């Protein structure tokens, strides 16, 4: 008798192929790699946020805080220590992890809406504080001071960093979900009381997922602002980052690994299609989010999964 194994390894191969094809087309096709870079970063952030929202049920409206913290940390260490920007990303990850732990302690007793809006208030505090901080240029923002950057290869280097981030994120979360910890997360997603009764610690799982999502968003934000060599508080701590991530995860399907892929595709198709109608694009975005909650609260991939049970990234156990 074989023990329980993960189902549908053929599906896993499909997932690898899909992500490989996406990466390959991103590398081969465009001359201007800014859009593929942004797609990679936003997808990575969405997967990070999804780990928190989709699996532990904590709906954060304040992850723009980590994007800003990651970007500002990078600019600060590069400008003051003179290190390589790509080394600086490690600082972004570290500092954002510390900030996330502090926020987790601050909001320890806050659940549901209290958490959602509490972290939003915190993100707003950070935006206002950074906007008052003269050393980082207050509301004017700051320019990255890295003279050793080679402009001919810099664009490519940033793109590779973004691609690495999204691939590592996608497969790290996939791997994580197939471990004991990940199965615990999915158990919490499905029924927290039942999960707790069989010895899973929801509180600890939530904090780990929260810190992981914060670090991914921080590194994503740092790479994004590194690519434009300039950061300001109104942009880096902008609620629009959070809205983008939320839209992608919710419309694609929270609590699935495939959902954010679909959501990202929809988001960028819509944005490019409505390029000349910024206001209309945002209105349609809001309408799609609301309609999704009305008619397909599990998101588009949730619909597919409910009908077919198919997973590109299989995270279910089956007994053979």
């Amino acid at each position, binding site marked *: 008798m074989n023990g329980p194994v993960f189902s549908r390894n053929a599906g896993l191969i499909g997932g690898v192929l899909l992500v490989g094809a996406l990466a390959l087309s991103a590398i081969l096709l465009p001359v201007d790699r800014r859009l593929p870079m942004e797609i990679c970063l936003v997808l990575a952030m969405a997967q990070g946020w999804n780990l928190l929202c989709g699996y532990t049920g904590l709906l954060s409206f304040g992850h723009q805080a980590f994007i800003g913290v990651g970007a500002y940390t990078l600019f600060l260490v590069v400008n003051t220590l003179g290190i390589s920007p790509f080394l600086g990303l490690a600082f972004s990850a570290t500092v954002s992890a510390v900030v996330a732990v502090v926020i987790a302690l601050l909001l320890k007793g806050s659940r549901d809406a209290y958490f959602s809006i509490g972290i939003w208030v915190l993100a707003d505090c950070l935006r206002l504080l950074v906007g008052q901080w003269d050393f980082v240029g207050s509301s004017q923002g700051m320019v990255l001071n890295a003279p050793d950057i080679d402009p001919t290869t810099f664009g490519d280097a940033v793109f590779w960093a973004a691609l690495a981030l999204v691939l590592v994120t996608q497969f790290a979360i996939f791997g994580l979900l197939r471990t004991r910890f990940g199965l615990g997360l999915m158990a919490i997603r499905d029924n927290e009381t039942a999960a707790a009764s069989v010895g899973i610690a929801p509180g600890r799982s939530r904090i780990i997922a929260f810190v992981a999502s914060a670090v991914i968003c921080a590194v994503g934000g740092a790479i994004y602002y590194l690519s434009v060599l300039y950061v300001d508080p109104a942009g880096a701590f902008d609620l629009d980052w959070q809205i983008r991530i939320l839209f992608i995860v919710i419309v694609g399907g929270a609590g699935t690994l495939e959902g954010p892929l679909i959501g990202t595709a929809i988001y960028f198709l819509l944005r490019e299609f409505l390029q000349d109608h910024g206001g209309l694009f945002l209105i349609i975005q809001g309408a799609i*989010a609301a309609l999704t909650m009305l008619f397909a609260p599990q998101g588009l991939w949730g619909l597919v999964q409910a009908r077919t049970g198919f997973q590109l990234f299989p995270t279910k156990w089956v007994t053979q």
Partner: protein
Amino acid sequence: MSFLPTILNGLMVGGLYGLFGLGLAFAFGIMRIVNIAHGEFIVLGAYIGASLLSVTHLPLPAVIVLVAVITFALGWALQTVMLNRMIGPNPVPAMVATMGLSIIIRNALVEYYGADIRAIDIGPLQDQGVSIFGTSIGVLPIIIFLIAVLLFVLMHILLTRTTLGRAFRAAADDFEILETLGFNRKRVYAIAMGLAVTLSAIAGLLLAIRSSYSPYSGVERLLISFEVVIIGGIGSLRGSFLAGLFLGVVQLIGLRINPNSGPLFGHLAFFLILLAKQANLPALFIRRRA
């Protein structure tokens, strides 16, 4: 310079903050729905009021009543068309849906009215002042504060003296009992959301008369509402009112100290109170067994 005028002005604006919080707490207490579009309804009240004032030239009290009727209908429709389908133990769908609605309203306002910061001009009343405790206070802020107090009193009477108010309080405790008594749960919810939106929209219109607003003001106003709810507690009219006054005073003193700080001082005061509420000191020393 004395801080007395700042404190008095903070109290007056705080009455409106109390109403913001009351609207949010009302919907949350009764339906367990957090309306993320709350701030946008507050701003919408200002835009509808401003348009009515400039198009119809009606007197301000009539415009306030009209805004109340229109926004009640909007809240009622929001609950009937959308939110009544999302009632349940999971709060996420309603929050995301109202987040979507807030994006729609915000950007529709930008498209229609433009993104510039506006103020409502209601003529000579704006410049009149009276002297209280040796400092000059505008007549208009006092009138606005009195309207806020009046709305709190009316809400208190509604909740304690009328059948509808008892239905609201019963719905907050246990909707199943309410249904056995012959109330239609969804209708009670729709009326409650209508009232919640109305209160906030009127407060938003009044705030717009004494300060400025833009389509992007909604986010800040939602956060203020939320802070009022947390500081004052859900289900307490007096709590909302006092929390509103407190935040109003803190914010205006903060803006006196640092004119660029925006809502920062209000946020920080909120977190201090949140921490104080969380700091359950004995729990630090007694290890809880899992």
